[in-house]
């Protein structure tokens, strides 16, 4: 917590706004999905905000991230604009990906966001490639792989630990462990520990409380600094909670009601807010004002997305090749 508190007032404000924006975005999508206006599969990041934001606060335009099914939060944490994101989730022509990707494949390469991914664990090899580019072109960039406890059992991820290690790539593997791979508990499905697995491949590895922004920020800072300075890859095992089901529509009966309640009571954004207000770093009234502003922003982009035109038949066969 000590090093996190060294953040400037502006940085703390920015971290709060990013986390609040993710929460507001996800809550709005949750409500709309229930109303039946959003097509396809949607997986929400609410409750996990401190991880994405705590990591991405260290990143800039040189850096790349790969995400998961649960990618909205990573997008926002990396600075992707919420308007085009919302359009994309509604399948609109002006969406971030022209309505061709949707929630599960949302990406913004101009921001170094290499995509949510419909294939569990598939981002890990891609991140090794992004890190190789940064290393060979000497951009000073790092690449972050966000993945879940479910993905941590994929060969793609385990292979990538090894490749990142033997090529000494500037990668940080951020295992976001919300306790469930879909509906199956990670306590049952993961043999050994995430930390032990990382160490087995020679990666400096740490367990982090994902409910505590400052803990994530500090641990990520150390790992990212190591990567940036040529010290190679690291692993963070971030333990956190998801507020909603695996996907929207998941009744979530595999979790006990008190478990979900306890998770919601340990809200990482509320905890962050409490700490910075108690330490007199930012006024509560200022944060309240930010809340209202973010709420209005998300409401506006929701209204705009719902009213926006769909892609047309002419769009079906574009964007397959650069030239064919």
């Amino acid at each position: 917590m000590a090093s996190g508190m060294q953040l400037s007032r502006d940085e703390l404000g920015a971290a709060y706004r990013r986390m609040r924006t993710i929460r507001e975005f996800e809550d709005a999508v949750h409500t709309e999905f229930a109303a039946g206006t959003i097509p396809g599969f949607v997986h929400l990041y609410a409750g996990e905000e401190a991880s994405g934001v705590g990591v991405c606060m260290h990143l800039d335009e040189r850096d790349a991230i790969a995400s998961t099914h649960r990618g909205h939060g990573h997008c926002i944490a990396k600075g992707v604009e919420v308007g085009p994101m919302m359009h994309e989730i509604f399948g609109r022509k002006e969406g971030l990906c022209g309505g061709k990707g949707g929630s599960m494949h949302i990406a913004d390469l101009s921001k170094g966001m290499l995509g949510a991914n419909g294939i569990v664990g598939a981002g890990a090899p891609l991140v090794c490639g992004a890190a190789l580019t940064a290393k060979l072109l000497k951009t000073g960039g790092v690449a972050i792989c966000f993945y879940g406890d479910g993905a941590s059992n994929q060969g793609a991820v385990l292979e990538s630990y090894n490749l990142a290690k033997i090529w000494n790539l500037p990668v940080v593997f951020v295992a976001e462990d919300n306790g469930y791979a879909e509906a199956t508990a990670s306590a049952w499905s993961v043999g050994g520990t995430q930390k032990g697995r990382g160490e087995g491949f020679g990666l400096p590895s740490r367990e982090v409380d994902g409910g505590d922004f400052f803990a994530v920020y500090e641990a990520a800072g150390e790992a990212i600094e190591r990567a940036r300075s040529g010290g190679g890859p690291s692993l963070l095992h971030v333990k956190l909670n998801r507020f909603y089901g695996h996907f929207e529509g998941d009744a979530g009966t595999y979790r006990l009601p008190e478990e979900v309640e306890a998770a919601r009571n340990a809200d990482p954004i509320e905890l962050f807010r409490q700490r910075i207000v108690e330490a007199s770093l930012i006024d509560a009234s200022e944060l309240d004002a930010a809340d209202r502003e973010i709420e209005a922003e998300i409401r506006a982009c929701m209204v705009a997305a719902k009213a926006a035109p769909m892609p047309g038949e002419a769009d079906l066969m574009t964007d397959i090749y650069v030239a064919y």
Partner: protein
Amino acid sequence: MSKKSYRQAINEAMRQEMERDERVILMGEDVAGGTGAAGDQDAWGGPMGVTKGLRPQFGPDRVLDTHLAEISFVGAAAGAALTGLRPIVELMFVDFMGVCFDQILNQTAKFRYMFGGKAVTPLTIRTMYGAGFRAASQHSQCLYPVFTHIPGLKVVLPSNAYEAKGLLIQAIRDDDPVVFFEHKAMYDDEMEVPDEPYAIPFGEANVTREGDDVTIVAFGRMVNFANEAADNLARRGISCTVVDPRTTSPLDTETILETVAETGRLVVVDEAHPRCGMAGDIAGLVAEHAFDSLKAPIKLVTAPHAPVPFSPALEDIYIPGVDKIEAAVAAVLDHDRKVAAE
């Protein structure tokens, strides 16, 4: 111009492109061979010696031995292509696609579409295919129809050393992901190949023989068998057009349809299995668009719907041979005589 093998032509294409553009890198299992060992750091140059000499010239940053784990290094090549490099990744035998296909099928091929046209993925996947090496079921398959099926990929089948050099240079310069198939039985085949770099465009078929009686469309190594069959048949007074499509995606449908319109007869030769393969695909194309010009049923010459066998006695009959092509041409022509006799 000088005499070069298929192997040398492919090596030269990579070398010249790596000299031209420092973003071009090469990675794969033992593409140098020897990394981390005490001895020669360019011990292999790939299992067939195709990449030999590139490591000493371009160094370990641009010619990277990988670990033996295809998901991660093929995926890393895709990620590097997506972020600014132009990697050539060697998937040693195409049979190994079974290990890493997600990174090709669901990642590489889909980026551009899923990301609304904003992704450019200039990745070249070089891979060996084909029977004739006594390498049996897991090191001998063709599998290019599988890749051809997938929108977002381009698929290249060079039929000789000249074609290999020009098509590989095009693949490396191409901004889309390309799967480049090298037939392992052709590496020592030599011919005159220009020394300077040149690119052969994709989607433009090469007509290697011109004739009036039958069109033979053949792929990869089979183009050479088709040429040989055509030359043998010419001595018997039968003249064939042989079409080498060069790429199965994009496919030059125009040249195929035009030549069939001229000859009215079609034989397709494909070393892949018959179901959902290129032979059936070309037959379907012609049946749909050139039915009226057909004077006889189309004949397909393919490998059987069986894994590639090990025993030389079996593998030799597995591979579509020149004799089978000649017999198919004769059968197609025989149809006319049968109809006339009725």
